[in-house]
């Protein structure tokens, strides 16, 4: 647990320090120093959360830490489970990758990025650890505010999407808080583990869960509440888009999972499960369809987030419907694989966009020659989204497919996965094929930034490298909680 605390406290301390120093990050040297500091912090955070993961994997029971030492639900509790530890590690990893990108890529990040990204890191870490419904609300708000501030970094052009994002996100948080109020009204408790024991199936509980679910779905941009996402993710600076897509939308999903798999009574979970799964399939299809039609590169990647979250929601839905703990590993593998792949996609898209001087997909003609490494990264990461073996996306899909296929009455769900796979293949390869065009090459505006392109490739390689730890990951996550 102490390791986990370090991984929470470090980014928060960094925030305050950066804030206090408030050095204007203008020169190359200052960027290097700030970036270097953040890299060191994230490396330490990554290693401590890795230790926490080992610790969590070794224990058979969930470990709790009552903050302030107050027991019996009076205080907020931290909770360390394999999933939590994994998400801590994952958050630190993505932050580290982006910090490297921001420091060493020529196109880099806006000057205020650093403290905000640490804010984001800290709030996410606090969120993963929290086992208290109201505390989750506070961390969610912290997360949303830092996400919006990061989007607004892109400059005045991004202010409108940022404002829309903020308003919707606030409204969503309040829906969630309303639900929390009702839960407290009904049970007088906020601690998740304690609620699990007492909660029962009645109208108030249903209403509360419904309100919280609506709010969380809006925040996670789950179809059909996703409309704010493409604008916000596409207009943000490159590294920020990656953060948002890889991490931020996963947080509400995490809470949704906690709510339905741990707080809600199984009967209710079984009822809502098929609905989630169905929404997931619709998200896959419609999100993918929108991604196929958009003329803009980053909008395509953003819509693919909407689509890919459909997989995760489907895994969640089926987990609830059948109460099969194996589905946990499908859900979290999707989350991790998607996060890594999306980081790569956004970084690659940003590189190509800057080098080729256009936001349009049609500008990618000949990108295999003009920005070969970025395009390669894009294709490789895209392969994981499609679920080509042995990528992380494939692992997740495989785990999801197994229980579906073993019972013939579940086969209709497979059609959803099939559709999703084909649609994602369509929008990824549409772009890849275009990049091989040698007849009408779009000449680059500036010389390409090799370091940035290689850094874009790193997460793509990592997501394929997940195959090496496939069996361990599946077993670790499959234990439930």
């Amino acid at each position, binding site marked *: 647990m102490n390791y986990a605390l370090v991984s929470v406290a470090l980014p928060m301390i960094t925030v305050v320090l950066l804030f206090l120093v408030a050095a204007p990050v203008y020169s190359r040297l200052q960027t290097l120093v700030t970036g270097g500091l953040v890299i060191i912090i994230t490396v330490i955070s990554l290693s401590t959360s890795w230790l926490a993961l080992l610790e969590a994997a070794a224990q058979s029971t969930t470990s709790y830490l009552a903050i302030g030492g107050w027991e019996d639900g009076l205080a907020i509790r931290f909770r360390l489970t394999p999933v939590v530890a994994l998400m801590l590690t994952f958050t630190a990893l993505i932050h580290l990758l982006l910090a490297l990108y921001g420091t060493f890529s020529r196109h880099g990040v806006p000057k205020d990025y650093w403290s905000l990204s640490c804010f984001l890191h800290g709030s996410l870490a606090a969120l993963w650890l929290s086992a208290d419904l109201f505390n989750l609300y506070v961390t969610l708000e912290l997360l949303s505010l830092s996400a919006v501030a990061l989007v607004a970094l892109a400059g005045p052009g991004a202010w409108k999407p940022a404002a829309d994002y903020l308003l919707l996100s606030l409204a969503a948080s309040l829906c969630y808080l309303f639900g929390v109020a009702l839960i407290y009204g009904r049970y007088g408790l906020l601690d998740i583990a304690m609620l699990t024991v007492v909660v029962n199936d009645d109208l108030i509980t249903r209403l509360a869960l419904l309100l919280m679910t609506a709010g969380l779905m809006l925040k996670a941009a789950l179809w059909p509440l996703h409309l704010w996402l493409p604008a916000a993710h596409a207009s943000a600076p490159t590294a920020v888009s990656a953060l948002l897509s890889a991490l931020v939308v996963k947080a509400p999903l995490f809470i949704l999972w906690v709510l339905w798999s741990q707080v809600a009574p199984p009967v209710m979970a079984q009822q809502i499960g098929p609905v989630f799964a169905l929404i997931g399939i619709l998200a896959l299809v419609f999100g993918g369809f929108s991604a196929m039609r958009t003329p803009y590169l980053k909008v395509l990647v953003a819509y693919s987030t909407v689509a890919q979250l459909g997989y995760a929601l489907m895994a969640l839905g089926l987990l609830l419907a059948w109460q099969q703990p194996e589905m946990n590993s499908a859900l979290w593998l999707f989350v991790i694989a998607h996060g890594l792949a999306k980081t790569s996609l956004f970084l690659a898209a940003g590189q190509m966009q800057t080098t080729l001087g256009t936001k349009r997909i049609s500008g990618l003609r*000949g990108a*295999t*020659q003009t920005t070969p490494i970025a395009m390669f990264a894009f294709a490789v990461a895209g*392969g994981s989204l*499609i*679920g*080509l*073996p*042995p990528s992380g996306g494939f*692992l997740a899909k*495989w785990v999801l*497919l*197994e*229980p579906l*296929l*073993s019972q*013939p009455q579940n086969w209709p769900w*497979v059609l959803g996965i*099939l559709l999703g*796979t*084909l649609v994602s*293949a369509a929008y990824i*390869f549409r772009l*890849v*094929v*275009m990049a*091989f*065009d*040698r*007849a009408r090459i779009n000449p680059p505006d500036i010389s390409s930034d090799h370091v940035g392109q290689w850094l874009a490739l790193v997460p793509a390689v990592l997501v394929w490298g997940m*195959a090496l730890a*496939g*069996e361990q990951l*599946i*077993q670790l996550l499959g234990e439930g909680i």
Partner: protein
Amino acid sequence: MQLSWSSLLPVFILLSSMIPGLLIFAVREEQVSLRTTLNLTGVVLKLFFVGLMLYGVSRGQDFRFALPFLPNAPLVLHGDALSLQFVTLSSVLWLATTIYAIGYLGKAQLRSRFFAYFSLCISATVGLALAGNLITFLLFYELLTLATFPLVVHRGTPESLRAGRIYLAYTIGGGTMLMLGVALLHSLANTQEFIAGGYLSDMAEAHDVGLRVAFVLMILGLGVKAALIPLHSWLPQAMVAPAPVSALLHAVAVVKAGAFGIIRVVYDVYGVETSTNLSLTQPLLWLAAATILYGSVRALQQQDLKKRLAYSTVSQVSYITLGVALVGPLAAIGGIVHLMHQGLMKITLFFCAGNFSATLGVHKIQEMDGLGNRMPMTMAAFTIGALGMIGVPPIAGFISKWYLGAGALQSDAMWALLVIMVSSLLNAAYFLPLVYRGWFCASPQQGWPAEQSWPGQRFETHWMLLLPPLFTALLSILAGIFAGSFFSPLGWSQFIVAREFSL
């Protein structure tokens, strides 16, 4: 897991092309000798390793490498007799094609990219051949798709992009089907290793629906690459790729990957008995027969040389499926040996077609008049390949057709024999005119469409273009003449089939 040379040899075979491939990505365009050295080192190493393994397997040694991947589904590379046949074929032909490609591409752009993906393709093919279970097979099957795609669109022209799109649409769709099939089978029986006679016999009754569905899904997936109708249309389109690609990949690696997969599924997953009991082989047989006839008829209609060869491939590859689906030892020998023979002959034909177009600009069949005078050696190799395809002894094609026919009789499928005969007639009808034009018609008055010469050229064309077809043509004759020996493709196929049918 103990690491010994016998467990690492399959990995070495795989890496001997993969590592040069990855290194070539980093090679600059103008570093020709470095690239060539890398390529040839890979080829030589691979041939050496394959030779070692052949020797080992013939002496009963077991080559197996495993890596944990998914629960109950590790990655396994296993060198058995059947996989070695495919590996040997790919490696030998890789040697020929590498030399050919160096000559063919000359000073074209993006050669590093081309050779890199080319090596990766071979690695994927070899991996697929060595795959010890379905999940490993699936993995390399998809990698093969991905590695071939850049080669299909290599020219980057609008029509090659179009072909690339079609190729991807088919192969990704097929790959998804295969994945579903494999996953379904895994959920029923876990992913076990390939074993002669299959591993599903004791659950055939309990899960007959599931097994049937899985079989159909997998055949759908494999059928795309094996170009079974109606999943074949990508193959003629993909002929826009450069000649070495068409030659090695679309005559050998890719289509054979599909056919090889069908062999694996029928023999080593389901087993002959189980697949017959589930009445799965009969529909497959019909499908194969229909593809053979359809491909031949369409080949007859083509006026473009490479298109005609492509449809001929569609037809010929289905002989393998036919042999498998006939379910008898003789037919099985015919099918498996045809995997080898068809590869040798068809690559000869593609090399020759590439020579015609690279040297003289000849693409259409009407333009072939008098080629025998201008390029006698190439035309001779072409003739050998064509006659072999028709089934003229002593060329290799005869052996496979003979065994297939005998197998049809053995399985009491007279109509299948009829199909083989009709198809041979059609083969003759679409190949003999070409041979006739080449040798007996007069050269065109106005000269060749686009004649090219290389500095220091001593033969009818660049020596690197000439040598490979002669080599493969020679091999296809040798394979026919020495069919009786143990190390011939036929002898090896008998060795494989003896295990499968426990003769």
